[in-house]
């Protein structure tokens, strides 16, 4: 089942008279349950591409259809609500709210969705258990290691029951051991719960785990390889 469909996507930045084609006509389809790594050198356009897929940036041309909704046509609060209910974000530097505990960080997005306290409590604890941090529910981010913070960030991304998770260089700040633990958790969630993951990365450890590698260079896809059969 198609979860993301990208058609002729272009993003042109203007710097005075100079136009920069950050994304230059990308077509891509990602199905439910895929574990995709979008790779490419710095400045290749992969982050811009993922920002547009995540509804954080708007395309100059083309369409992004997520679960039959044309994301590129959404504006303002519609777009914010769409992101909240359909996309889970994992950022390179975790970006947890430092004044909230691990559990509260996970609950936060559910609070924005208007979920009841009981429901929030239950799901937050389930997700913490899923990322192996059930015993750190009341710890603030400052008391967690980088790897633990990123696992909380993954749990937070899953809290809203999104259609897919967009992870922007999630392992860039982690050491090998922590990266392995995090990737194992994400792989497990992908396999067990059929959650779609799309990574932006140039970390070979992530690429090794990915089952599909989309390589972008100069704003276009230069290769799209299924590396393991599902």
């Amino acid at each position: 089942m198609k979860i993301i469909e990208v058609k002729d996507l272009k993003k042109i930045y203007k710097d005075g008279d100079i136009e920069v084609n950050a994304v230059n006509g990308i077509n891509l389809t990602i199905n439910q349950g895929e574990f995709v790594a979008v790779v490419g050198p710095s400045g290749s356009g992969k982050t811009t591409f993922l920002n547009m897929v995540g509804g954080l940036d708007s395309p100059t041309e083309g369409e992004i259809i997520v679960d039959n909704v044309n994301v590129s046509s959404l504006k303002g609060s519609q777009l914010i609500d769409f992101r909240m209910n359909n996309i889970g974000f994992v950022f390179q530097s975790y970006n947890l709210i430092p004044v909230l505990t691990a559990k509260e960080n996970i609950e936060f997005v559910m609070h924005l969705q208007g979920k009841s306290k009981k429901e929030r409590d239950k799901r937050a604890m389930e997700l913490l258990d899923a990322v192996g941090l059930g015993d750190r529910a009341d710890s603030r981010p400052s008391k967690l290691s980088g790897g633990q913070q990123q696992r909380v960030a993954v749990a937070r991304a899953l809290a809203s029951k999104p259609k897919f998770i967009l992870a922007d260089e999630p392992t860039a700040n982690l050491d090998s051991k922590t990266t392995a633990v995090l990737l194992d958790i994400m792989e497990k969630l992908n396999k067990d719960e059929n959650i779609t993951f799309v990574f932006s990365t140039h970390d070979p450890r992530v690429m090794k785990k990915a089952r599909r590698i989309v390589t972008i260079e100069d704003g276009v896809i230069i290769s799209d390889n299924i590396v393991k059969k599902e």
Partner: protein
Amino acid sequence: MITSIAWKNVWRNKTRSLVVIFAVIFGMFGGIFSSAVMTGMVELRIKKALQNEVPHILIRHKDFVANKELKYYINNADSIIEIVKGVEGVKNCSRRTDIIAMANTAKAASGVMVFGVDTMLEKKVCMLYKTICDTCGNYLTKSNQIVIGKRLASKIKAKVKSKIVLTLQSTDGNLTGGVFRVAGIFETKNAAFDEGNVYLLNSSLCNLINFDENNAHEISVMIKNLEELDNIQASIKAKLPNNYEVVTWKQLQPETAGMSDMMDVMLYITIGIILLALGFGIINTMLMAVLERVKELGMLMAIGMNKLKVFKMIMFETIMLTLTGGAIGLIVTYFIVLYYGHVGLDLGFLGNGYEAFGFDSVINPKLDGEFYFVVTILVILTGVLASIYPALKALKLNPVEAIRADN
């Protein structure tokens, strides 16, 4: 949850928040306490004025005030007093004979207003006799006695039992005079009053100026409840002939009466200026708080926090920060005002300056509940207004750029 996060964010940078909170506490204390001192001063001034200087209501011939001529008197004052006493709410009445005179001692002279009073009646409407200290003599008991103010005594170098010669004009237009001994020296803390007024027995003064004792220049009226002042004034006026004027203490001393209203305006201006200054400090602090959280705010917007919620969060933070300082400042000041209201605040080192304007040097700071309520509203308003700019700054953030910001 937004409220909870906002509160936690207030304490994210404890030092910075505490600096703002203490600034608000000291600002509130400075503004409110000085307001309470000013209010206490004014109330005390009014109280003293009503006790010693002006009656609640005064009845006089309508032409007397302009000319101070002896011929403009109240005919058969006792009958008027009887009428006035019949008005509901009137407590006591006293009658006076007034005349301008020159008071001389061997060393100096000064122009004074001489009041001829009936001691028994006067003590029921005017507490001036209570301001004569133990070592300053007594109130009037004999016909050749005079009671003068401390400032006049100092000016004309008179003491208790000193001789004072009063030179004045009798009803037939001739200059006349009399020698009096100082029976007592009063001190009201109103230097101008103490310098300009002296008291004789009414019989002595009438005899001296050849004035019929049955008549008087003014009738002082003390009422039971000052809240009823205007009503009682109207009732008395309705019962008296048209050639008599019935005035309240507010008309006799408009500058004293106006102090209260003027003080209210001054208090709010003072608090307004303090809150304005604090508001700018709070804006600066909140702006810093927003700018150092750009990345986090970007993340919040990315994961689905809409602009209204972001705005509310920053606004709540600002209001909480302001209200924390405001509430502590209000409570602390309330108890300090209560304490000094009870024991009095001695501004003795400035006493002479205050007394020149009729103020006592020991002040009992006082503020009514309404003022605290209005200040609380103003503090909240300051918080709301101070939050707008930082909150708008947060709303202008672009999630994509904010997430990649350095902080």
